[in-house]
């Protein structure tokens, strides 16, 4: 029975303070299909799947599992019903081991006394990782893992037991292409076993590889469900955003000026080794590399968030000391960190207060904060960046992931920094917003600002940057001028540690 409907959601409504997150949503999931939820940031995708997983309670509507109405009051019930969820926001316990996290809530126990069977859990975790074809130590602590490794641990959690439904909310937003590849292989295998998978992603290119059907959402409503093979990506985008997007400009080069920043021989343990590069005025410099290549760390050193072991930084030819973010900002360097919840936002504050946080003097009258100025600046940013919110006072913890990212960008745009470092700026961001961010970076570059963009999305790097630097195992492995000829195939070997053709 290939077309058997496992899960049917009818007329689901869900409101949060000041926003109707789900508005009469209908959704059905068939056995053995990969069903994609697509929509702009804040469309309500995560909210919908959280109702399935028991994390949120619906306000009204019915959920039918195999035709029978179910009341998913909490996460436990959801799992007992055979639903497993990988959340967009990581939900791991940092101080516990990988194996413990994987089995959290369904630990394997043995007699006597129902002792937790660590060995067995570690062994099974190892098997899961072997199956996933990745190398993670089940005994290692989660807090010592990179974001990507943590994401793989999240994925591993859903493979512990056999489930009928697996929900994946943006599983690929922070993992490498190689791991994505492995994930797809596993998804196909699960599908073959009749497992239904709900898949959420903003990476439209990857959809065609695995997805069968797509439900598009906009502003909490479902726009429609289509078969993947019947539509083009452009059609999907139109459904998502309700209009067609203009085509992206090629990187412009004519405004690039003199050398602004020179980084010489920066080292930090063996994470960053002897890294040197230059950055010109008005240039967009892309940093490519595999997960854990040391790009983020290099940027954090440059920004003074970490103290370098060795190395020098020259701004307009003069050496500068940068030992703290304060100094970096003082020299006109801004940094948008890759983990926005951990390092970027104050979740308990409003949008306005987050936006002005890095440059409060701008909204001060002398010594005093001017609420008026602050609101004006915040309102301007919110409109310029198209943040989806009903109030500039909304606490950022209530924003969808993509809109949170826009708030951080707004914060740094308010600082007037000459050099802006964007670390994975489009992670978890919808196509429309992505295009806006690219446009924004281009505009900033044309205004004479210099931009460094770290990204694990290779096509994005090639599309946006004027020049590309590749890092591998903490070293700078190569550099390409983006004169329109570079390709993924050209960069990839350097990322993997091979010898490349440095142009």
């Amino acid at each position, binding site marked *: 029975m290939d077309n058997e409907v496992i899960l049917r959601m009818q007329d689901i409504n869900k409101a949060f303070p*000041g926003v109707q997150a789900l508005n009469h949503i209908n959704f059905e999931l068939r056995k053995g299909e990969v069903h994609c939820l697509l929509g702009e940031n804040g469309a309500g995708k995560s909210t919908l799947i959280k109702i399935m997983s028991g994390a949120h309670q619906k306000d009204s509507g019915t959920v039918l599992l195999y035709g029978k109405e179910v009341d998913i009051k909490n996460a436990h019930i959801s799992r007992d019903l055979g639903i497993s969820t990988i959340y967009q926001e990581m939900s791991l316990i940092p101080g516990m081991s990988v194996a413990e996290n994987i089995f959290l809530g369904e630990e394997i126990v043995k007699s006597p006394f129902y002792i937790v069977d660590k060995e067995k859990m570690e062994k099974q975790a190892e098997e899961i990782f072997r199956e996933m074809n990745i190398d993670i130590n089940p005994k290692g602590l989660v807090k010592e893992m990179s974001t990507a490794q943590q994401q793989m641990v999240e994925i591993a959690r859903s493979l512990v037991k056999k489930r009928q439904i697996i929900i994946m909310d943006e599983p690929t937003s922070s993992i490498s292409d190689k791991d994505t590849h492995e994930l797809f292989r596993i998804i196909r295998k699960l599908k073959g076993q009749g497992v239904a998978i709900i898949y959420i992603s903003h990476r439209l290119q990857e959809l065609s590889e695995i997805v069968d059907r797509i439900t598009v959402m906009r502003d909490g409503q479902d726009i429609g469900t289509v078969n993947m093979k019947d539509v083009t990506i452009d059609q999907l985008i139109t459904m998502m955003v309700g209009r067609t997007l203009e085509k992206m400009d090629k990187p412009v080069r004519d405004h690039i000026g003199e050398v602004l920043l020179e980084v010489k021989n920066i080292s930090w343990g063996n994470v960053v080794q002897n890294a040197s590069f230059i950055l010109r005025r008005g240039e967009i410099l892309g940093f490519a590399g595999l997960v854990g290549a040391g790009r983020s760390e290099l940027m954090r050193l440059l920004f003074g968030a970490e103290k370098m072991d060795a190395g020098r930084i020259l701004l307009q030819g003069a050496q500068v000391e940068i030992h703290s*973010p304060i100094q970096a900002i003082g020299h006109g360097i801004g940094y948008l960190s890759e983990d926005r919840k*951990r390092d970027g936002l104050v*979740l308990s504050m409003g949008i306005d*207060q987050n936006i002005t946080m890095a440059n409060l003097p701008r909204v001060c009258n002398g010594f005093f*904060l001017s*609420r008026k100025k602050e609101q004006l600046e915040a309102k301007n940013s919110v409109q310029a960046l198209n943040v989806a919110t009903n109030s500039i006072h909304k606490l950022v913890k209530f924003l969808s992931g993509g809109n949170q990212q826009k708030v951080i960008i707004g914060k740094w745009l308010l600082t007037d920094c000459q050099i802006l470092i964007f670390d994975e700026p489009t992670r978890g961001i919808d196509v429309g917003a992505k295009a806006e961010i690219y446009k924004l970076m281009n505009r900033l570059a044309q205004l004479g600002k210099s931009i460094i963009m770290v990204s694990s999305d290779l096509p994005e790097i090639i599309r946006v940057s004027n020049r590309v630097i590749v890092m591998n195992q903490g070293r700078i492995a190569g550099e390409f001028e983006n004169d329109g000829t570079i390709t993924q195939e050209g960069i990839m070997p350097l990322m993997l540690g091979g010898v490349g053709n440095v142009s």
Partner: protein
Amino acid sequence: MFHKIADRFGIGIAIVALFVFLSVSSPHFLDIANLLNILLQVSISTIIAVGMTFVILTSGIDLSVGPLTAFSSVIIGLTLHLDIGIGIPILSGILVGALLGFMNGILIAKLKIPAFIATLGMMSVARGAALFITNGQTIHMFPSEFRFISAGNLMSIPIPVIYALVVVMIAIFILNYTKFGRHIYAIGGNKEAARLSGINVKSVETWAYIICGITCGIGAVILTGRLNAAQPIAGIGYELDAIAAVIIGGTSLNGGEGSIGGTLMGAILIGMLRNGLNLLNVSPFLQQIVIGAVIVSAVFFDQYRRSKKDSSAAKGLNRPIEAVGATKPYQ
């Protein structure tokens, strides 16, 4: 600020309920003299709770406020007896508070010692030091100018009440209308994000403890005047009173969320309760039971109200973004 008081509406209701109950059950409660008494009796704890609010907003804690107050008080007492007027003694008391607060700040912000341990240590050290320099003796008898300025009456309003009001106003202003105040909230909300936004986390954190020390110094001035004595053992239990006021007022122990207005209400709730139980002549053993029960109920009620409000707001009005520019800034 005022929207934050409104946030704490639940505690407000609890206060009103208690007020009405006490007015009905004790014929003396509503006397102006008694109401002024309540304010006078909470003035010191309010001032110190204000300092504590700064600390807790940064997600810290200060257990040393009692001994800090005692130490400042002793310094004030000793210097008053030097016969050098009253200005220098008052100033040195407040400065000593600031200094000890600064030491707390260094231990916590710079040396990364958990605030609980650092201030627990300071609690012990400052108490020991106060006892040591006085040899355990109380210092007493101070000039009447000092007693007037620290604890007298101005047109029948107790001066400590005025000080408390001024401290509250300044604190509200600092937290809501200065860069520093915003930084306090940011640090409590997310220390790493604050650091990466170019906020000097160590300095702001240290200043929070200095401010708390200063409020202890001010508290010490009032206390010394009120008692006409400087006791090395003064201020026992201040930390619990201050923290309780802050948390009853809705500030989270995790930092980043809360307000001075809430703290003020918390302090008043506790003070009114103690006063009322005295007036009603409740047995001392029962008093403790009642105080505990009322505090928990008030916070429960507040909590309950807010969870209701959250869920009803959910069904609520969508305020369009365009309208934001038109709204008046709340001052």
